[in-house]
């Protein structure tokens, strides 16, 4: 039997096949933007061929098919969701358009200071499809004005008559008292039959009407689209004989069963980067590592995540397609630095990125008409990438185009040699990434010396030996399946469900810790409710694992810190203990003496993260009997390993390096999807899971 993880990226659709033996193999096929499921079927064909099987025979043997998809993200960015109606509290119909005044600059990156090019996002739901109804609940959940059902009924009929295919409902304070939204559910069922709808309190029962409305609206906007996509893909697989489990990657920490994905499509948004972090969580566990910095450098961006104490860092509000979503997702920070980042000269100054040549035309060396020099072009010119062995030789690069682009656009205007210019482009890109790494570690209160760095994505292994400069991480690991790492995350992740609710509670000023000032019964009841919801959602085989979290902050302060709460019965001791840990974590993150104890503490959000394991084979460690390079050594080539340091560097075939092999840098290890560069002062070994481990400082 096979366990197959797939991931649809911008350029390639990846598949990782896990065999019953624990062996893993990575496959790639071009992404098919018109109907992305075709690319998935294609990569399965490629995999089948590698096993000497017909596609159908291969698919019949798939026990678990786990899928990471950008379909939800693309549908949102391209505004290709369905016509959706929004029902909200009278007086507040413009909440989604006002966007807390963030609409004009959200998602503009560094260009937000350029006022004249600001715009507001294209609306997900136009004003004509937003209906206000009379109802009002206050902060305590007390009904100020009951929901006027006939008004609601008229609104729904009217929206249905306008041709909406989906409805979203978000009333003020519905997360404290959901009665009106529940009533709305009944009326929708009466008036609109089986129309897709989302209720804000069911989806994200947290404070903040703009983000809650946006999340609910986007969920409804994408729901039918995702449902159709999943159905279509599943049908294609079933038609080919598939009868295993079908799951889909979410962005919060695991996979969901495919039939559930269409209910909460917002959880699928940005699941690609999350897949890579989750694969890293699994690898970190296998290797016994607690703290990991994950880096994914692809064609257009450089994405960084953190694993602390074995858990990925989670963030609750994210900006996507210029709207703001509130839901716990694995935190990934990105900058526009990738293989496709364009170098340009302006007035004697050299800049790299954030604009990218993307996949089409791509870097100049792709030979698809791109004339602007990119980071990948620099890598080719400097000798890091062998133009003949890109994608294992399946795509030939043209060194001459790369050379010409750098010469014309960078070297000549700056009066440099092409090699100097290429080294400069690379150096600038590497430092941009180093700056981001500092930003997400040191600046967030984490000491990189306590971390190992994972480098994956097509371009990451080529650059990691440099962008860790000055960071002081303990070692760099290029995972075995580095080029299909998100797909690998899809196949190695557990089922996951996350839910949260806001219930504001406060302790009086002055006394600390003051757990007894908090209503333990309400805290217990809130967690019990969330746990019930999570367990119900993860019903099925396997033991569910539940973790509780509480978000706290100092009163009249804004920074929130989420701390884990012990399982079992909660008493004032456990609450006190939680508060103490909150204070400790607050100072770890924000600095000594920053806790404003005198103000008292506020409890904001309760969250439960639940997982249920999926049955899959274990990857077995290989014997560490590789001794050295042996047959892996391909020869040497001239590489400009540093500015003004061109030398002959040994080049190895990665798939010929056995577990236990050790090499001294500088060295180049070529894999079909990526090239690993080992710096002069570094050494490298292949571990028992065939990961490439680089240690030692990079040469400055």
């Amino acid at each position, binding site marked *: 039997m096979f366990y197959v993880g797939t991931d649809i990226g911008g350029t390639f659709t990846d598949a990782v096949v896990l065999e019953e033996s624990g062996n893993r193999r990575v496959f790639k096929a071009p992404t098919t933007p018109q109907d992305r499921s075709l690319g998935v079927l294609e990569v399965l064909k490629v995999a089948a061929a590698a096993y000497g099987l017909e596609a159908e025979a291969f698919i019949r043997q798939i026990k678990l098919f786990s899928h990471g998809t950008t379909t939800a993200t693309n549908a949102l960015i391209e505004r290709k969701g369905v016509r959706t109606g929004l029902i909200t509290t009278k007086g507040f119909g*413009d909440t989604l358009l*006002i966007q807390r005044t963030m609409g004009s600059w959200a998602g503009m990156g560094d260009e937000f200071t350029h*006022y*004249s090019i600001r*715009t507001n996002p294209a609306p997900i739901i136009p004003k004509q499809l937003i209906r206000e109804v009379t109802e009002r609940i206050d902060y305590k959940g007390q009904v100020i*004005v009951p929901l006027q059902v006939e008004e609601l009924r008229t609104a729904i009929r009217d929206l249905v008559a306008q041709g909406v295919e989906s409805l979203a409902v978000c009333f003020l304070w519905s997360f404290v008292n959901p009665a009106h939204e529940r009533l709305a559910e009944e009326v929708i069922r009466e008036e609109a039959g089986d129309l897709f709808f989302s209720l804000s309190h069911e989806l994200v029962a947290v*404070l*903040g009407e703009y983000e809650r409305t946006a999340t609910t609206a986007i969920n409804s906007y994408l729901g039918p689209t995702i449902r159709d996509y999943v159905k279509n893909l599943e049908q294609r697989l079933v038609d080919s004989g598939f009868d295993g489990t079908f799951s889909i990657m979410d962005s919060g920490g695991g996979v969901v069963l495919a039939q559930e994905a269409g209910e909460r499509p917002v959880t699928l948004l940005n699941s690609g980067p999350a897949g890579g972090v989750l694969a890293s969580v699994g690898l970190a566990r296998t290797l016994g590592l607690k703290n990991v910095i994950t880096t994914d450098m692809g064609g257009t961006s450089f994405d960084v995540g953190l694993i602390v104490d074995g858990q990925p860092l989670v963030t609750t509000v994210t900006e996507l397609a210029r709207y703001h979503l509130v839901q716990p997702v694995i935190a990934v920070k990105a900058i526009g630095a990738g293989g496709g980042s364009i170098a340009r000269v302006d007035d004697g100054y050299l800049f790299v990125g954030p604009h990218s040549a993307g996949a089409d035309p791509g870097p100049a060396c792709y030979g698809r008409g791109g004339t602007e020099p990119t980071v990948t072009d620099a890598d080719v010119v400097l000798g890091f990438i062998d133009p003949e062995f890109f994608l294992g030789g399946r795509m030939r690069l043209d060194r001459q185009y790369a050379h010409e682009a750098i010469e014309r656009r960078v070297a000549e205007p700056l009066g440099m040699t092409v090699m100097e210019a290429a080294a400069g482009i690379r150096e600038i890109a590497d430092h941009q990434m180093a700056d981001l790494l500092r930003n997400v570690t040191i600046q967030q209160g984490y000491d990189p010396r306590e971390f190992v760095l994972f480098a994956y994505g097509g371009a990451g292994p080529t650059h990691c030996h440099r962008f860790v400069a000055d960071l002081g991480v303990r070692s760099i690991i290029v995972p075995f399946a580095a080029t299909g790492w998100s797909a690998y995350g899809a196949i190695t992740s557990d089922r996951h469900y996350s839910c949260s609710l806001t219930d504001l509670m406060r302790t009086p000023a002055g006394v600390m810790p003051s757990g007894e000032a908090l209503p333990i019964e309400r805290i217990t009841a809130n967690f019990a409710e969330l746990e019930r919801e999570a367990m119900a959602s993860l019903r099925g085989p396997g033991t569910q694992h539940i973790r509780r979290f509480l978000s706290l902050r100092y009163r*009249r302060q804004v920074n929130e810190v989420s701390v884990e709460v012990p399982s079992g019965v909660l008493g004032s001791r456990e609450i006190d203990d939680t508060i103490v840990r909150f204070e400790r974590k607050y100072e770890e993150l924000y600095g000594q003496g920053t806790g404003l104890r005198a103000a008292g503490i506020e409890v904001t959000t309760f969250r439960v993260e639940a997982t249920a394991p999926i049955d899959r084979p274990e990857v077995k460690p290989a014997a560490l009997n590789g001794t050295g390079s042996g047959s892996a050594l391909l020869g040497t080539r001239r590489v400009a390993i540093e500015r003004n340091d061109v030398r002959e560097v040994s080049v190895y075939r990665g798939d010929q390096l056995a577990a236990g092999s050790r090499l001294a840098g500088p060295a180049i290890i070529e894999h079909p999807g990526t090239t690993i560069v080992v710096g002069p002062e570094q050494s490298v070994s292949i571990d028992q899971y065939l990961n490439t481990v680089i240690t030692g400082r990079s040469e400055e």
Partner: protein
Amino acid sequence: MSVQIEQADRDRAAADRPALDPVTFEVIRHRLLAITDEMSLTVKAVSGSPMVTDASDFNTALFMPNGELVTMGRWNQLMAASLSEMARNIIADCSEDPGIHEDDQFIVNSPHKGALHAPDIGILAPIYHEGRLVGWSGGCSHHLDVGGMEVSSVCPEATDIRQEGILIPPVKLIDGGRPRNDVWNMITGMSRLPWNMSLDFKAVISANNVAKQSILTLIGRYGVDTVCAAMGGLIEFSESKMRRRLRELPDGVIRAVNYKDHDGRENRLYKISLTMTKQGDEITFDFSDSAPQSERFINCTESGLKGGIYSAIFPILAYDLPWNAGVLRPLKVVTKPRTVVNAAWPAPVSLGAVGVIWLAEAVVVEALSKLVACSPSLANEAQANPPSAPDIFRVAGIDQHGELFGGPLLDMGFMGGGAYGHRDGLPAAGAHCGSQQNLPNIERIEGAMPLLYLYRYFLPDTGGPGRQHGGQSAKTAQAVHDTDRITIIPGGHGFQMPNALGQYGGYPGSCNQRLLMRNTNLAEWFASARLPHDIRELQGEPQPLSAQPGRLTYGAGDVYEMCPQPGGGWGDPLEREAGLVEDDVRTGVVSPAMAREVYGVVLAAAGKLDEQATKQQRDAIRARRKAWPRERTWAAPSGPATSLYRLGEGLELVRVDGTHLVRCERCQSALAPANENWKHYAARTVVQAEDLGPHITLHQDLEARQYACPGCGLLLSVEILTRDCPPLWEIELKVQE
């Protein structure tokens, strides 16, 4: 004299620097900007204050050894001036006594030493490497309270700056790495919120420590000379770009005027007057003709004025450049002492930061826009006025949990932006001086304060009409909830002066609006399961409020509504495509009446465009305009015309038969000789406030005038000035051929 010395210093410093290769420069440039961002993150993290984190009322910077800005965060733009001036004053005042040494940090908040007003406290630190001063770092943030007569230290009753909170001249707060607790306690002891103040100090001090560590690491890697050269190079980069941009623009004189109504005691007008002269690669901002200083808190000091000027310049001329001294070097500021923009000690200034300074920003935006609009490459950066009249609304009292609460509600921030020639102003764009605004959710406010909101929605007819209209503002209303009464302190300007003026015939955006209804029957509405969409539907007693009514009691049954000024419009509204106006009416941006009267667009039943009636209406309006009287006429030369400059929109400067003249772009008819104000030759009328829109009120001393092309009726300018003011000569280009 001092200017010359600085110039000599700079030249010598530039000559001493090693030449940097572009790669090293770019790597260090990126790092310096990253360090500045890291400082900002640190301030936000440690402070945790809603003023810093939600309102983004802070900034951080790195400086050269002489105090010139090298980098600056992109938060409160007004603080660019504060940071620069604070650094300059610390160096001037403290170098000899008490001396500036390694690991010192200096604190300052005096508005005469750089701050916009006393609540803005800056802490700056010199950075030394092996005994050599290599630069400075610093941060400035708005504190919740610095003492003084009134909670939160904005003091309507003050007649003396010494009543507006503690005033700290440059003082050493950290001495060789050790906090001076005596000084620290003395300062925080003056605040009503000493704990928060301490935390905000720690925030900036930590940011300075981050900067020092990061700079020293950078020096360790690249060497001190290289890093210093890159810092200076960063300034030169911005300066050379800035000067190049300025050289691309025509030379000339541009004038802009705006008014602040009400000074806290009397409803009188204060003129903010700018004569901007651009010559070569420099600009002079002359504010000498502005009103004499007030006895009340509306004034600003010269550093406050500079804050407004710089904040206008960054997004227009330096949108893609590092914001630093290089952007500022080509600028010169001229003022007259004892004016509202350069108040003399001890005039009060606590409201200046949200009053005169915003208006200074507005006139600079207006004048710079008129200048860049003449250049094809920069015309897209020109805009109609942003809103510049924040109506600050503070609340205080006992909250629903039985505890003291207080602070500003930020509903005044839901303001639309000014229109551009290529797009409408953005709805709820936020303040021009704060580029990343994020205002709180209603649920967040209601959870923390005893208030119940009734609505927050876009009000039609707010954004100034125009070919491109100004962005809409949102109107909010709320009532007290779960408490008997609280105190409210509204205060602002722009109730009888629409400060968000339009450009090129665009109309101004609406005035600030507020309505306090006493003893309404809101409870009855709730009891009968009704919610008002407009508090005018309720029964109650409207209470007239002045712009600065001071403290008011706000009790059960009272409701308060406000709608902030939006952005101004761009171009003649009759030139807006009728189909777009039809959409505007459908989406509630424009009312049918406004569509008909101002846009000349007639809609039939069901809001459908009536093309025939629209054409007739527009023709009729143009015909009326053509018939407006003209002050002067002339015999224009005839012959082929050579275009010299497009004067933004509607008019162009041309040469005909050796004579320079201004002509209408639409009908090509010659309007006026170029060496006179074209307004004397245009068709001119005086209009009433209601002609400008339903939400416009004009102070009794003000007059709104419209100027149109006598040839085709194109609306060229909507001008608002005091009655005694002659037509403003907006732009006078010096043509070089």
